[in-house]
């Protein structure tokens, strides 16, 4: 999920019909720059070298999303397939959840299967610390910075879609990153934009990425 404005310029993206490393190349109508879909970066043309701002998004079931956001609006185009329901993640070995952008140049990723099994996975890179979370309801995956109020936090999974931080035992939502009880009640973790991707694609586009399986 990208912000499609760069400076003062609003861009409209189209499918260029090109592939690079077996992956989609986008083209913006306004400047005709070619963009890597997975890197979110201008690769050729006027805006070469520009990185698009990412926004955190989540993939989950409609029922879970509607429970979270009853007033949510919905895209209303004709379906192009019917294959995407929660059974899609049964082949979890093929997927990773990776983060990049707003990550100090790093691009850590965690295997979906590990996330499904453990619910909460701490990831320490050279420059920062993140917590990757999975909810069995809806199967959604998210990543947050593992810090609040300037304090580093270490999380472990708790029942019913919660997690607890070791430092003071506060209980946090894996979904929203908000502390719902304990000394940190009311604090929230900063969500980091990420994407579910095929393992091979992530490796091809982020060759320096450490993938935790």
């Amino acid at each position, binding site marked *: 999920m990208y912000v499609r404005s760069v400076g003062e310029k609003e861009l409209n993206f*189209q499918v260029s019909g090109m592939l690079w490393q077996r992956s989609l190349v986008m083209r913006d109508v306004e400047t005709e720059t070619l963009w890597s879909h997975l890197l979110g970066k201008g690769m050729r043309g006027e805006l070469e070298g520009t990185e698009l701002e990412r926004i955190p998004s989540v*993939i989950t079931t409609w029922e879970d999303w509607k429970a979270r956001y009853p007033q949510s609006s*919905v895209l209303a185009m004709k379906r192009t397939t019917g294959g995407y329901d929660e059974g899609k993640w049964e082949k979890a070995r093929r997927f990773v959840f990776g983060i990049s952008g707003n990550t100090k140049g790093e691009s850590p990723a965690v295997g979906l299967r590990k996330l499904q099994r453990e619910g909460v996975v701490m990831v320490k890179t050279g420059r920062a610390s993140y917590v990757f979370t999975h909810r069995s309801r809806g199967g959604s995956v998210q990543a947050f910075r593992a810090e609040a109020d300037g304090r580093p936090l270490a999380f472990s999974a708790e029942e019913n879609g919660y997690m607890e931080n070791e430092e003071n035992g506060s209980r946090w939502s894996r979904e929203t990153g908000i502390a719902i009880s304990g000394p940190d009640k009311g604090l929230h973790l900063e969500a980091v934009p990420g994407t579910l991707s095929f393992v091979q694609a992530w490796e091809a586009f982020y060759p320096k990425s450490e993938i935790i399986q």
Partner: protein
Amino acid sequence: MKLITTLLFSLIAFSVSGQDFNPRQVVKPFPSIQNPEIATSDEAGKWVIAKELVLGVVVADEARAYPINQLTNPTREIINDTLGDRSIAATW
């Protein structure tokens, strides 16, 4: 000389990025999708299935769901949209 300089420059650019951008045209370009039709949650309840996957996003307290079954086709990979006060490209 110019050729050598160009070659040298490409080599340096390549070693810096580590990835040579060499896209291949596979199919013709598809027109961009702008101002897509949007439904309310109640309307969508009639045709979105409970277990169907959606790409969900919240901007400035406005939530929107993009059913993946509507995004899965080369013609639909990117939806140019506006949510909250932001221009966004819904894609995954």
